[in-house]
């Protein structure tokens, strides 16, 4: 089951990062019209900023998770390494 988790889990993270910019774009564009270049740039900048924040949070949480799972991971990886 976990082997298939990335197919759902990773695009959902991508969508979550895109969401603020997409929602902003939908709220500022006129109905039935395309985004103007300025509106597109603002929305893209919001997505870029969200991605940078997500990267910082992701790395920080990954370090906390690693600290929490160190003992378990060491035992598991040692067994794996020995085959």
């Amino acid at each position, binding site marked *: 089951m*976990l*082997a298939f*988790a*990335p*197919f*759902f*889990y*990773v*695009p959902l*993270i*991508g*969508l979550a*990062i*895109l969401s603020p910019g*997409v929602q902003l774009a939908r709220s500022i564009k006129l109905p039935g019209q395309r985004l103007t*270049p300025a509106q*597109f*740039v603002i929305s*893209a*900048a919001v*997505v*870029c900023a*969200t*991605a*940078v*924040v*997500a*990267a910082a*949070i*992701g*790395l920080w*949480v*990954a*370090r906390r*998770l*690693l*600290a929490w*799972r*160190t003992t*378990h*991971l*060491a035992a*598991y*990886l*040692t067994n*794996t*390494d020995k*085959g």
Partner: protein
Amino acid sequence: MGAVPGLRRAVVSEYHRVVRPPWEIPTALVTNGALMVAAWFLLPPRAHAFLFSLNGPLAFPVILASWMMADTPATNVMGSSPALALSVLEDQAAYWRWLAARCIVIGSLIGVACAAGVMYVGLGHYPWSEIVWACALVALLPVGVLPMAAWLGIVFPTTRAPCVGAGSTAEPGVATYGG
């Protein structure tokens, strides 16, 4: 394998690993990219609208970037290289460098491919400002996604079981979970 060196050398080392057999990362990226392209162009409109919430030509490379990451190379950081993972377990800084190097390498591969897609779709049809920002977006999206995607592999690392006949009764190539 020794401890992970500085970030720059860690990135170079990861690039070396990527371009050598078994080409796990390039294979997964290309396969997922091909599946997404097929789904984008071949699905009927209702299924397309259900699967892809964004529409429009510039949405294509952005969603492609997100889909290309959706596989175990992005999530299974610890299990993909047990020896290296063991070497960084006790050193948080080394682990951070290794994870960051992996994110940079995978992100750069996806970013370059999708930025090329943006250029192809956008040149001649969109203003330069939109093309440049769309390129920045597809380059930065993997950087945001990959560290979070790695959480799963830390909590539930997966490894390939050794082949039958090498002292194991497991089926060849079956993933095993450390949860």
